[in-house]
């Protein structure tokens, strides 16, 4: 029986090549898209779920009021780890992980900059990062041991044994390799190539026991069967107990591993959305794309039911029961689903590298994993069932006495559900078109926003190694050689704010004012280097005004907040340091182009510095400029590589997340439209076949080709119109929600909807009219003779 079914199914497929192509390719593309999305989702939800003790691992968080809002964040005092181990009986162990840090590694003549973490010795006993060599219990003991990932060890030592070798860090201290870590999986929040013991920080004097310095991450491992609630009760009162000076309402809490990746977005002290929203949204999109492909299958299978009706009739006459026919047709759709899945996996394999790039992830299909095959089988069967159940019940319910007499007309009987399915497809497609267009508008809107400074030819470099010490010499040579037109050192790159404070004081300040200012430092000619617009006063100029080292330039918003009649000459206190204002600049975008600019204070040369900015001389070729700049940097900072960054590239990176959203929306929109149009094309084909006699009669009676084309296309276009009417408000609502997250955003315009409507309309006209015209120009004599 099965063999008979299989034979029929395969012969049907090969005989109706067009139908098979549309069905299988639509389903394969839909499946491939769904698989890609599922891979992404799987990667997201598996973040840090591989730690054996994940059920007991928590991160310590702060919760306190700032500017009238309850804020939550995950940097806590360094002293916290030892304190919870001492004070909370529920705690088995606590480890600190400092911010990722780059060191210059020197091994013989080899130099490379490597990023990693400095951690407490218990790190490897808490998290499951296995050591290929070395003992996890002792590898991080002492202050001079270092662990390398397998990849880094290979990069440094090649095939030589790395264990026991010495590496010099930042040209100061020698470290001995005491362990080789297995390379980190993709799905962890940790990104380190080396691990150093916390003892190193102690030795260089960077450890502290201040409760006010919330600067590290503390991870806590609870004992088995310990209660999180009772641990959190104790966490709540920890800060006020040890830090009497600060807000007594300041709380701390433990936040579980399972929620770090997807839920850790807090608004007013409560979890609020986060990545989980995207995971859900993408899940829905995956399901919808697959559903749309399944709808094609249903529509085409039922549309061509007349072709199968005879077979159903005969099978029933010779004794088939409805049940066995349902089984046959579902089996057939599972077979098609299987063939489509094979193609889908090929498509996924081809698309994975680009999709990985788009999502910034290393995604892959693990063919060695039994779960993959189980999932694949489940996926195929479910798709087959979804796609095949409706046609199966529809086809198997035919009355044999009618179909075998030839009086049977199924096509019209099914118009309504089929129309409904087409509407569903196009609604989804149009929603995606509208979303794509609005996301693109929003990106353009922010990108076209005046940044307030000139990004061309502006380069920055971290003040690594001896650069800070030799800054004057470097600056001098950059200028005198004609490489740079202007050089400024600053506290942070011009594209990022690294510091903010509400602690500034000035004359006439309202004591309750807690306005948060961006805090920045620059030594000289900051407006020239960056191309900022000076409104009042002047730039820093240490040669003519040595007191400019305590000068300050404020932006317009800051001047407004401080409410000076004439800001120039006014004193602003930052802690014990008194600055005097020498200039006012126009606001510029320091942080997000989607947010309003904040009030900003730029302190003079007395401040702290991390970055050197220089404006390249545009009359020389850039490559030439950089080559010569490298020589200068090498001369004064020989141990460190020359690692410059272009400001315009960094600025462009601010749009990456939204661009990704836009590209994905566009991709899904294109796929949905493509699959829907495949289906529409198939339907139009069968419609043209079914109405061939009607067309013949109409032509004999004098209908024109245009008239008939319009007649045939009209029905489908009506459906697209209905879809548009349904899709527009849904898309409006979705985009309204999305744009709420961006204070600086576009207004949704009616033109976008018109565009989406016209686009989908045009695409469907093209799809349908081919068949309509073909049917309309056919010779009626021929079509009438076929009856």
């Amino acid at each position, binding site marked *: *029986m099965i063999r*008979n079914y299989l*034979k*029929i199914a395969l*012969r*049907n497929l090969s*005989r109706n090549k067009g139908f098979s192509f549309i069905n299988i390719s639509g389903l394969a593309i839909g499946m491939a898209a769904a698989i890609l999305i599922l891979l992404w989702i799987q990667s997201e939800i598996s973040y840090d779920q591989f730690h054996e003790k994940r059920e007991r691992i928590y991160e310590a968080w702060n919760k306190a009021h700032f500017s009238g809002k309850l804020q939550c964040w995950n940097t806590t005092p360094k002293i916290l780890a030892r304190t919870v181990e001492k004070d909370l009986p529920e705690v088995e162990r606590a480890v600190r992980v400092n911010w990722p840090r780059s060191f210059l590694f020197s091994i013989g003549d080899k130099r490379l900059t490597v990023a990693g973490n400095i951690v407490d010795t218990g790190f490897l006993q808490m998290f499951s990062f296995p050591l290929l060599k070395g003992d996890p219990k002792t590898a991080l003991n002492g202050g001079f041991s270092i662990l390398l990932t397998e990849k880094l060890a290979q990069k440094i030592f090649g095939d030589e044994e790395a264990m026991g070798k010495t590496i010099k860090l930042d040209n100061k201290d020698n470290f001995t390799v005491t362990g080789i870590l297995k390379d980190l999986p993709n799905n962890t929040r940790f990104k380190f190539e080396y691990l150093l013991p916390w003892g190193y920080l102690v030795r260089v004097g960077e450890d502290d026991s201040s409760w006010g310095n919330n600067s590290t991450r503390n991870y806590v491992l609870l004992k088995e069967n310990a209660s999180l609630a009772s641990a959190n009760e104790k966490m709540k009162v920890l800060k006020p107990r040890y830090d009497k000076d600060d807000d007594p309402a300041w709380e701390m809490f433990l936040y579980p591993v399972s929620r770090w990746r997807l839920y850790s977005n807090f608004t007013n002290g409560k979890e609020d959305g986060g990545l989980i929203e995207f995971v859900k949204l993408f899940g829905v999109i995956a399901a919808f794309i697959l559903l749309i492909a399944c709808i094609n299958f249903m529509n085409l299978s039922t549309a061509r039911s007349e072709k199968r009706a*005879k*077979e159903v*009739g*005969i*099978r*029933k*006459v*010779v*004794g*088939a*029961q*409805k*049940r*066995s026919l349902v089984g046959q047709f579902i089996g057939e759709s599972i077979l098609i689903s299987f063939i489509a899945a094979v193609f889908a996996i090929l498509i996924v394999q081809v698309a994975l590298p680009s999709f990985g790039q788009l999502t910034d992830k290393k995604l892959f299909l693990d063919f060695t994993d039994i779960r993959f095959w189980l999932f694949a089988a489940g996926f195929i069967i479910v798709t087959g069932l979804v796609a095949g159940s409706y046609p199966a019940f529809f086809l198997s319910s035919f*009355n*044999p*006495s009618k179909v*075998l*007499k*030839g009086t049977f007309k199924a096509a019209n009987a099914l118009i309504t559900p089929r129309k409904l399915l087409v509407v569903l497809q196009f609604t989804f497609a149009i929603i995606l078109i509208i979303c794509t267009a609005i996301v693109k508008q929003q990106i353009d809107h922010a990108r076209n926003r005046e940044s307030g400074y000139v990004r061309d030819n502006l380069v920055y470099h971290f003040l690594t190694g001896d650069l800070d010490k030799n800054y004057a010499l470097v600056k001098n040579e950059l200028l005198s050689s004609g490489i740079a037109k202007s050089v400024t050192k600053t506290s942070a790159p011009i594209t990022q704010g690294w510091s903010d404070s509400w602690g500034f004081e000035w004359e006439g300040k309202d004591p309750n004012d807690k306005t948060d200012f961006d805090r920045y430092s620059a030594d000289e000619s900051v407006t020239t280097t960056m191309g900022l617009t000076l409104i009042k006063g002047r730039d820093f100029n240490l040669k003519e005004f040595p007191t400019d080292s305590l000068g300050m330039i404020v932006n317009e918003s800051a001047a407004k907040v401080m409410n000076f009649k004439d800001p120039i000459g006014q004193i602003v206190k930052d802690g014990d340091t008194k600055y005097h204002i020498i200039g006012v600049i126009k606001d510029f975008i320091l942080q997000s182009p989607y947010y309003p600019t904040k009030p900003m204070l730029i302190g003079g040369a007395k401040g702290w510095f991390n970055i050197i900015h220089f404006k390249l001389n545009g009359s020389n070729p850039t490559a030439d400029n950089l080559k010569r700049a490298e020589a200068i940097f090498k001369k004064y900072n020989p141990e460190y590589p020359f690692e410059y960054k272009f400001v315009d590239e960094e600025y462009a990176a601010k749009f990456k997340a939204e661009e990704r959203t836009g590209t994905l929306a566009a991709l899904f929109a294109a796929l949905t439209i493509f699959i829907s149009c495949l289906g529409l094309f198939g339907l139009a084909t069968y419609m043209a076949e079914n109405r061939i006699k009607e067309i013949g009669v109409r032509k004999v009676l004098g209908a024109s080709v245009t008239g008939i084309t319009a007649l045939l296309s009209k029905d489908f276009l009506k459906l697209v119109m209905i879809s548009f009417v349904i899709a527009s408000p849904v898309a409006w609502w979705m985009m309204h929600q999305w744009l709420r997250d961006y204070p600086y955003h576009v207004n949704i315009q009616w033109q976008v909807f018109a565009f989406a409507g016209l686009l989908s309309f045009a695409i469907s006209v093209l799809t349908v009219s081919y068949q309509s015209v073909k049917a309309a120009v056919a010779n009626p004599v021929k079509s009438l003779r076929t009856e």
Partner: protein
Amino acid sequence: MIKITDLEKVYRTDEVETVALNKLSIEVKEGEFVAVMGPSGCGKSTLLNILGLLDDPDSGSFIFNGIEVAKFNERKRADLRKRNIGFVFQSFNLIDELTVFENVELPLIYTGVKPGDRKKRVEEVLDKMQIMHRRNHYPQQLSGGQQQRVAVARAVVNKPKLILADEPTGNLDSSNGNEVMQMLTDLNEQGTTIVMVTHSEHDARYSHRIIRMLDGQTVLENIMV
């Protein structure tokens, strides 16, 4: 073998009500060859569908082999049908995607005959119908006469007690038509009961008895000599 009494069947659409069978009563004995004749729309096809258990009557009694089947559900009807009744249609109704062999094999699959036995029986019947040499061809590759022979082969492969033929020669030329009629006669002589709907007086002469219908009723019965 067949006894129908006061059988009624009405087809309804929104606007029209068509009485297809109007209190029809007929009896067919085992081993008989009966022809049903009448103008288009007189209800002969409806009668054949009900006899073939493809359709159910609105009222009346239908006793098949001593069992009342008028109220059987679809599953029971299918079961009874596949074991006892073979069909021959005017338009052959072979499945285009299956070969001659596979078309004839189909009823055996549904009655659960083992593959080895199926092969034997299909070959037997193909041999008898003299189309063995065409066993691996598809229906489209055969002439009309050959297709109808395949259809007859399919109808008899399960050794049914009753064969229902709906204008079996309607799509054939006279020589092929005669051949098919001869086949049915042979089957009848070997004991199979045959009920045949036809427009052709010539074909009807092969039968034992002609039932003439009009407006869903029998109007005349001719016994052939």
